[in-house]
């Protein structure tokens, strides 16, 4: 299916993006962006959220069409605005959000949209598809029951099926959009190995990620976008964290300062009364006798593999899910199982894993989202007070510097970082004394990430007890005073934040015991 | 939001202010003509359509009558009341109603009379004080008994055996009133009423129920199909079961609708009265009433081609139910 390139000087050039423009309504998402991707190279694409990365991917995969400019692949123009066409031209993509069909099995998930035909193209070649699917997953080193609906498989396996789907078409350019965003550290490593394998097969990879360490691990070249404009392309050797971040945010950003403030040893935490006390918390088949406590002003990090049960524990504590045994105690008050209202009442707040569906009411305005968690505090005699509502929204927007032109705009128009700030702000308004953060910086750009980190630390210094779940070990290490590692629903190990190392955490997460 | 609140308020106020001009209702149609409304139980079924043709005939004959024929397509008595109320506002002259549930429409009818509109009931009577005259072709008793008598005649006077009734909905007022009349009549006869089915106004269900009844009651001698769908449904079932003649089917229907079943002997007799005459007479009565030619004391009325018609009290008598069979069905 691939158009074989005649031997020319441009033989090593695979894709040329030439003065691409794309605007949504008034907003210029891409402004004459041009760069090139060579054969068999891993080309990282960096930029803050809203820099235009996703738009570029949409163009390359034919989901949308550019306003002007050209996309050239193998000296042939790419069929713009035509998904199948782009696939035929040899472009495959692994999307950020899981693009799996929860109700379909692995086979259908891999082949839907370009099924193998039989009987003159009318019927499906089911056996052939089954065989090929099995082979593909074989290559990925995954053994998945091909018959069960994907929704019943763990997240990592779903990701692998999406991977298989992407690889099933003989592609020359493989676009990976945040492939590790929802994976645990060890699964991410596996993913990166796959990237190298593909590279060896001579497949070019356009790698989009917020995780700098990954980029430095796999990428050959890095292209940086900012505010829809092309900034620069560098060989990865001539870059380091700071330089890259600088390119992305366009200004000096001293992460070290954050680090320093963060990793200051907190000596007095032992005397502090514990805000949260979890005792023998168990839920059949999900997590078993989890016991720990968090003191006021303490940040406890929770590490572990995806599916180890971290989010489930958090949800149980907050009352989203109910639990079978054990107790959750906040400031000496024992909470009933499965009552968010109660948890909220005693000053608990939770920033959930899935910002889009659990954290925010996307079509609602920023203001209404910011006041959703404490509407009761904003009423006089049962009526919501418009003025106080507006006031609170204004205050929070200022405090967290949420970038929004008008608080009455739907929150879905905001960038990921700003959305996350809204979620946090919504809870700060209710004056909590215990904050649960589940993947607080997933899909958040570097600048916003630093802001969020600083914010978490500041809150802790003001006496907030914090439980932070993260799959980014660096994040855990930089922020946490204490670190709990969850392995298969149990607390496998506990570390001091100041002294712990990535290796220790990884070991505990994988093996289930401290080294 | 305060702005939007003001917007909402504005909306409402302007709406209300515009919604109504103080001014009394005017009549529909032109003034010199007499507006007569004919309100059937259900619009769109052959029975009442044929009444309508009769009414049109009379209207044409009498000349200066504007005839309005309208009614609920689903036979909802509530909508009958709403139509009457609509006509009260329109200020029509006479309302002739076939009440599907006398009580439901009673209040509306009373209000119509208070508004100076003549109200006549036909086909079925309403609450007495709600109308001035009832064009009476049959009371529930006479209909119920009539059907049972026909059945006994068809089955054979001293024949024993089972009969079943296939009605409409469990809540349909008319059918229930007929059933009340039929039960004692069946009691007196040698026949035994096995059960009553309620397929609703659904032809498929009626057919299905009849089929099952035939299978379940081997000694079944007759089926009463007492709704516009259950009568043909029952007949069809008997015919398909090849039991035409063995199992007698009878009920209430426009003879022409049942012709084919009468011809092949599935149905011996169809109980009905001349619906065209019913419509015709109703309009005659309306006209006479409007012109004051008809008063409570009258004992007879000259009704065009029907000649002198008896009046007992406030009942205009069209004559009792008729029985159609092979011999006279074509004369309908």
């Amino acid at each position, binding site marked *: 299916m691939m158009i074989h390139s005649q031997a020319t000087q441009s033989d090593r050039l695979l894709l040329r993006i030439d003065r691409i423009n794309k605007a949504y*309504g008034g907003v210029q998402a891409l402004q004459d962006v041009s760069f090139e991707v060579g054969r068999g190279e891993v080309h990282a694409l960096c930029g803050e959220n809203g820099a235009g990365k996703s738009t570029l991917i949409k163009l390359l995969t034919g989901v949308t069409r550019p306003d002007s400019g050209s996309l050239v692949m193998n000296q042939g123009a790419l069929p713009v605005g035509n998904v199948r066409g782009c696939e035929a031209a040899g472009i495959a993509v692994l999307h950020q959000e899981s693009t799996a069909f929860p109700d379909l099995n692995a086979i259908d998930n891999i082949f839907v949209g370009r099924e193998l035909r039989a009987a003159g193209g009318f019927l499906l070649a089911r056996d052939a598809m089954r065989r090929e699917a099995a082979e593909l997953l074989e290559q990925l080193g995954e053994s998945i029951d091909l018959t069960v609906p994907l929704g019943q498989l763990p997240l990592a396996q779903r990701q692998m099926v999406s991977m298989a789907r992407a690889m099933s078409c003989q592609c020359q350019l493989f676009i990976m959009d945040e492939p590790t965003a929802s994976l645990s550290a060890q699964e991410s490593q596996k993913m990166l190995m796959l990237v190298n394998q593909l590279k060896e097969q001579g497949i070019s990879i356009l790698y989009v990620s917020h995780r700098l360490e990954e980029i430095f691990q796999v990428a050959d070249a890095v292209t940086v976008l900012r505010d829809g404009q092309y900034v620069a392309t560098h060989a990865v050797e001539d870059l380091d964290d700071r330089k890259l971040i600088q390119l992305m945010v366009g200004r000096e950003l001293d992460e070290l300062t954050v680090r320093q403030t963060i990793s200051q040893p907190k000596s007095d935490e032992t005397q502090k009364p514990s805000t949260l006390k979890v005792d023998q918390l168990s839920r059949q088949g999900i997590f078993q006798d989890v016991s720990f406590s968090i003191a006021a002003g303490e940040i406890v990090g929770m590490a572990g593999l995806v599916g180890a049960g971290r989010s489930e524990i958090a949800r149980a504590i907050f009352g989203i899910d109910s639990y079978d045994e054990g107790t959750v105690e906040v400031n000496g008050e024992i909470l009933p199982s499965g009552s968010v209202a109660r948890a909220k009442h005693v000053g608990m707040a939770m920033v959930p894993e899935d910002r889009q569906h659990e954290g925010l*009411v996307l079509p609602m305005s920023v203001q209404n989202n910011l006041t959703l968690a404490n509407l009761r505090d904003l009423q006089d005699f049962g009526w919501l007070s418009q003025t106080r509502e507006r006031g609170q929204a204004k205050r929070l927007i200022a405090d967290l510097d949420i970038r929004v032109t008008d608080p009455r705009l739907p929150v879905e128009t905001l960038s990921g970082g700003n959305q996350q700030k809204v979620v946090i702000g919504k809870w700060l308004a209710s004056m909590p004394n215990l904050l649960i953060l589940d993947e607080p910086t997933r899909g958040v750009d570097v600048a916003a990430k630093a802001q969020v980190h600083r914010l978490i630390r500041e809150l802790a210094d003001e006496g907030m007890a914090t439980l932070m779940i993260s799959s980014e070990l660096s994040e855990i290490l930089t922020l946490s005073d204490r670190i709990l590692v969850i392995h298969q629903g149990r607390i496998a190990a506990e570390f001091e934040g100041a002294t712990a190392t990535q290796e220790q955490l990884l070991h505990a997460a994988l093996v289930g015991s401290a080294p | 939001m305060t702005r939007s609140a003001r917007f909402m308020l504005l909306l409402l106020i302007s709406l209300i202010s515009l*919604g109504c001009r103080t001014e009394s209702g005017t009549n529909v149609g032109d003034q010199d003509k007499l507006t007569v409304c004919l309100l059937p139980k259900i619009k769109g079924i052959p029975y009442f359509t044929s009444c309508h043709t009769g009414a049109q005939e009379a209207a044409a004959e009498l000349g200066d009558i504007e005839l309005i024929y309208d009614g609920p397509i689903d036979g909802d008595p509530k909508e009958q009341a709403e139509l009457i109320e*609509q006509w009260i506002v329109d200020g029509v002259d006479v309302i002739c109603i076939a009440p599907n549930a006398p009580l439901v429409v009673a209040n509306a009818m009373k209000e119509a009379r208070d508004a100076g509109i003549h109200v006549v009931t036909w086909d079925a009577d309403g609450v007495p004080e709600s109308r001035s005259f009832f064009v009476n072709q049959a009371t529930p008793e006479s209909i119920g008994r009539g059907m049972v008598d026909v059945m006994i005649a068809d089955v054979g006077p001293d024949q024993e055996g089972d009969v079943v009734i296939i009605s409409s909905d469990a*809540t349909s007022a008319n059918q229930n009133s007929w059933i009340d009349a039929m039960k004692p009549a069946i009691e007196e006869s040698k026949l035994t009423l096995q059960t009553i089915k309620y397929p609703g106004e659904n032809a498929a269900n009626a057919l299905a129920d009849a089929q099952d009844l035939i299978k379940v009651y081997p000694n079944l001698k007759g089926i009463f199909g007492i709704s516009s769908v259950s009568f043909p449904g029952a007949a069809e079932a008997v015919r398909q079961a090849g039991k035409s003649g063995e199992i007698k089917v009878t009920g209430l229907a426009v003879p022409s609708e049942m012709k084919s079943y009468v011809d092949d002997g599935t149905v011996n007799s169809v109980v009905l009265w001349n619906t065209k005459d019913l419509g015709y007479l109703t309009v005659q009565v309306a006209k006479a009433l409007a012109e004051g030619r008809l008063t409570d004391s009258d004992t007879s009325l000259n009704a065009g081609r029907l000649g002198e018609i008896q009046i007992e009290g406030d009942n205009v008598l069209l004559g009792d139910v008729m029985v159609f069979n092979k011999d006279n069905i074509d004369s309908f």
Partner: protein
Amino acid sequence: MNQPRAVAQFNYWHELVLFGLLIGLLGLAEYLSPGFLSLRGQLYLSRHLWVFAIMALSMTLIIIAGGIDLSVGSAMGLCAVAFGVTFEMTGQLPIAIIACLLTGVLGGLFNGALIARFKLHPLIVTLATYAAFRGMAEGISQGESYSQFGDRFSELSRATLLGIPLPGYLFFVLAVLVGLFLWRTPTGRSIYAIGHSAEAARFSGISVNRIRIGLYTFSGFLAGLATVIYVSRFDTAKADAGRGFELDVITAVVVGGTSIFGGRGTIVGTVLGLLLIHETRQFVGRYWQVDELKSIVVGVLLIVSVLIYQLLVRQRETRSH
């Protein structure tokens, strides 16, 4: 993003369209059949409205919260039977009325409990109770109708104060209360949130289940209230009360601009929708005197009104971002 503020905040297009349609209709009607807009006539015929109108209020809330209640019509049947039976037993109107309301509340509670506790789809639950309620009503009453509740009771529905029928006052009071509740109370706001995203609402500590149960119970209660008016108006309590009402009510609410997917809608819109349908039926009935046309016109009206709105919205969306 950088759209003009006016557009960003003005979200009452549908109400505006409806209002335009209504004015147009009234004008046309008065032009084609003079005397249509007579105050006396309008007020007199407004009695066709109240029973639906009252149920439309709770239906609006439920649909905004992303649910639906197909069982209201059948619930009315059950309430009517409860009314009749208790009256026959006790002869006391107050008791009968209480029984009627109670039945409605219990029916609604049943729906709500199934939907909230068992996480069943409202469409499924109420489809089941749609059949079950009506069936129970027929079984209990054996299809018979109850009546003779006394003239004073039947007066309730037709008596007027300052020319406006009493049920009208009841409706407008309820409408204003529900409207304010929806627009200006924490719970009201929460209902919108639930409609957009129940998960997000839960994660904000809103007790979604309690609100849902509350809404369906309220719907049942209003069904009971509507039944009282219905019975008083027609002097009859029977199992077939309110047959087919659910569709008429939903139609009115949707024409009123409430999104069937939840999250959007206002009481003002619903009131406008009710009026629009009411006036349309009235005009068609008065002008053509053909009952079939009513259902045709209302059906088309339903589709067209939403179509217009959709076109409007998409226009707006292309203008903004």
